C-alpha cells in the first residue's frame, strides 16, 4: 500500500479503463432495468389521475412498512401512480425534505407524509403546497397542525389516556409506583402519549409516585437498558408506561429474573404486541390503525385529483385497548379480535 510508480504499462491502463467502463455500464444497466420494470416506459399522466408520493419516517419500522404496503395496495386498487420514499433514520429531516422536493418535481398531486420532526420539514411542505400539491400528514401531526392541508392520524393523547386509564384500573386500590419509558425526546407523538397517559392515570408530571422515566427512542434494546437501570433503584414498581411495543418488550426483557410483576401498558397494536398481550408479557396495548390512515390518505388523493377537493383538519382513525383482562370502565377488545386486526407479522 502507498506505493505508486511512474511506470505504467499501456496495456494495464487500458484494462483499468475497461473496468471503469464496465462498472459504469453495470450501474446503469441496474438503474435502467429498474426504470423499465416500474413504469414500463409510460410517461407522466396529468388527466385527473392522482400521482401519490408517500414519505415515511424510515423504512425499517414494521409500522411504516405496513403503512407503505397498505397505501400501495389502495393506490393499485384505484389504478393510480404511487411511489414511496423515506428518511433513513428517525429525525432525518434533510432526507424527508429531499424526498418532498423530488416528488414535487416528479409531478406528484398528493404527498402523504409522516413528518419526522414536526417543524423540520415545514418549509419544504410549504413550497409543495404553493405548487398546488395537496399535502396530508399521516400518523404524526405537524406543528402547527395547519402547515399541511389535513391530518389523518391516531389521536395520540387519547391513545395515551386509554393506556393510562387501563393501567390505573388494573392497579385497583394499590398505591401507584410508576416507571415511564418514553420515546424520542422532543417528538410530538412521544409528548402526546406521555401527557395522555398521565392524564388517564390521574397523575401530574413531577408526582413523587413516578419513580423514574427515561427515553428509549422506541427501540427495544435501548428500552431494555433503560429499564435495567431504572429497576436498579425502583424495586417497588407496580405500574409501567411504555411508549410503544418494542419498548414494552425491552422492559419485559429487563424484568426477567427480577421477581417483579408490574402492570405493563403499551401502545401500537402490532401483531407481535398483541401476541405479547396474549402471553401476558404486556397487560394491555392500545391498538392504532395505520392501514386505515393509508387508505383514507390514498382515497383523499384520488378524490383531490378528480375534483380538486382538498381534505382539511384532523381525522382521528381511532384506537382501542387490547387485553385479555378487561377492566370495568375501560372499553377493550380481546386478543382474538386483536390478532385479526393487528398490523405487521407476529
Amino acid at each position, binding site marked *: 500500500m502507498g506505493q*505508486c510508480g511512474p511506470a505504467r504499462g499501456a496495456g494495464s491502463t487500458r*484494462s483499468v479503463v475497461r*473496468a471503469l467502463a464496465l*462498472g*459504469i455500464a453495470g450501474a446503469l444497466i441496474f438503474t*435502467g432495468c429498474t*426504470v423499465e420494470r416500474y413504469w414500463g416506459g409510460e410517461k407522466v399522466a396529468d388527466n385527473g389521475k392522482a400521482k401519490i408520493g408517500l414519505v415515511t419516517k424510515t423504512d425499517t419500522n414494521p409500522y411504516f412498512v405496513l403503512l407503505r404496503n397498505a397505501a400501495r395496495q389502495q393506490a393499485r386498487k384505484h389504478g393510480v401512480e404511487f411511489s414511496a420514499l423515506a428518511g433513513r*433514520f428517525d429525525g*432525518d429531516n434533510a432526507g424527508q425534505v429531499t424526498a418532498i422536493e423530488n416528488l414535487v*418535481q416528479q409531478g406528484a398531486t398528493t404527498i402523504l407524509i409522516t413528518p419526522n420532526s414536526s417543524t423540520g420539514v415545514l418549509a419544504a411542505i410549504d413550497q409543495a403546497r404553493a405548487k398546488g400539491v395537496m399535502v396530508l400528514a399521516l400518523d404524526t401531526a405537524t406543528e402547527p397542525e395547519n402547515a399541511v392541508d389535513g391530518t389523518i392520524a391516531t389521536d395520540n393523547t387519547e391513545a395515551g389516556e386509554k393506556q393510562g386509564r387501563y393501567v390505573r384500573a388494573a392497579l385497583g386500590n394499590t398505591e401507584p409506583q410508576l416507571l415511564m419509558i418514553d420515546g424520542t425526546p422532543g417528538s410530538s407523538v412521544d409528548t402526546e402519549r406521555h401527557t395522555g397517559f398521565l392524564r388517564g392515570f390521574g397523575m401530574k408530571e413531577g408526582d413523587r409516585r413516578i419513580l423514574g422515566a427515561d427515553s428509549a427512542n422506541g427501540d427495544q434494546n435501548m428500552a431494555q437498558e433503560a429499564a435495567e437501570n431504572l429497576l436498579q433503584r425502583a424495586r417497588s414498581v407496580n405500574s409501567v408506561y411504555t411508549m410503544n411495543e418494542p419498548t414494552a418488550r425491552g422492559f419485559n426483557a429487563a424484568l426477567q429474573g427480577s421477581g417483579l410483576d408490574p402492570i405493563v401498558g403499551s401502545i401500537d397494536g402490532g401483531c407481535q404486541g398483541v401476541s405479547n398481550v396474549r402471553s401476558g408479557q404486556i397487560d394491555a396495548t392500545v391498538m392504532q390503525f395505520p392501514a386505515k390512515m393509508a387508505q383514507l390518505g390514498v382515497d383523499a388523493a384520488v378524490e383531490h385529483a378528480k375534483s380538486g377537493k382538498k381534505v382539511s383538519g384532523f381525522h382521528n382513525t381511532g384506537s382501542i385497548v387490547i387485553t385479555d383482562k378487561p377492566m370495568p370502565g375501560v372499553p377493550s377488545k380481546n386478543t382474538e379480535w386483536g390478532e385479526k386486526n393487528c398490523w405487521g407479522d407476529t
Partner: protein
Amino acid sequence: MTTSVETAPSARKTNLGEFILRTPAVGPALALLVAIAVFAMTTDTFLELDNLSLVVAQSLVIGTIALGQTLIILTAGIDLSCASIAVLATLVMADLAVGGMPGWVALLLGIVVTSAIAALNGALITSIRLPPFIVTLGMFTIATAVARIYSDGQSIPTTDSVLRWLSTRRYLFGGIEVTYGMTLALIMVLGLAYALAKTAWGKHVYAVGNDPEAARLSGISVRRTLLSVYIVAGVIYGIAAWQALGRVPNADPNAFQIGNLDAITAVVLGGTSLFGGRGSVLGTMIGALIVATLRSGLTQAGIDDLYQDVATGTLVIVAVALDRLSRRKQS
C-alpha cells in the same frame, strides 16, 4: 517496499486511460454525465433547470462535509465525527441566534466550536498516535451525545437572516436558480483545489498520505501537516453547518446521523483513495452530486428509495474496486 513520490508527467505519450488515472475526477465526472443522460432520457422532469438546481442544493451539506473528509482521507486518515460535529454546530449557531446574539457572531462561534473539536481530534491523533478511526469514532459518540445534552433533545428552529443567508437570497443567472450556498461551495472547491495543487501545504498533504515515513525523511513535518488538515476540516464542518441551516432552518440533534458515512460515500465516489495520497476535492463534489442525482432521478422514475440505496451502495463498491484495481496495476 520502495516508494517514489510521483513526479510531474514527462513528455511521454499519454493516452485516455492514463489521463483518467492521473486526474481522479474524470471518472466520476463521466459517471455523473452518464447518469444525467440516462435520467434525461427515462424521465421528462429530470433535465429541467429547476431540478438541476435542486440536485445541486441537495448535495451541498454532505458535499461540504465531504470536502473536509477528503482532506483527512488524503492523509490516509478518516473522520467518523465529521457530521456529528457539524450537527452540534448547527445547534450552537441556532441557539445563540435565538438567544439574541447577532447571526454572524453565532456563525463564527459555531465555526470555532467545530474547529476546536477537529483540532482536538488532530491533537490526539498526532501526539498520542492514536488511529484516526478510533479517535473520531469516540468523538462521533461524544459529539452526538453533547448535541443532545446541549439541545435537551429538542430541535431549534432559526429565522436569523445571516444563518439562513446561504439559501434565502437567490438570484437568477441566465434563468438558473443559484443560491449563495452553491456559490460558496464552488469557491471552496476552487480554493481547496488550488491549495492542494499549487501550495507547499497541498503537496505535503499528498506526501503524508502516500507515505508518512518518506515524507518525514524529505523534511516534511508530518505532525504539523496532519494537525493543520484536521483544523481546516473543522472550519469546513462549521461552514457545512451553515449550509445545513440554509437548507433546513431547524437545528436538530437527530439530523445527519449517518452523515459521516454519506460523506465517505461522496469522497469514494469522487475517486479519492481510502488508502490516502490520491484524490481531489473536485471529485468529491462530483461524488456528492452523483448521490443526489441518483436520488432525484430514481425518484422521478418512480423508484422507491430502498432501491435507490441499493444503486448508491453498488456504485460505492464499484468505485473502490476500481481504485484497488488501478493501484494493483500500477505497482
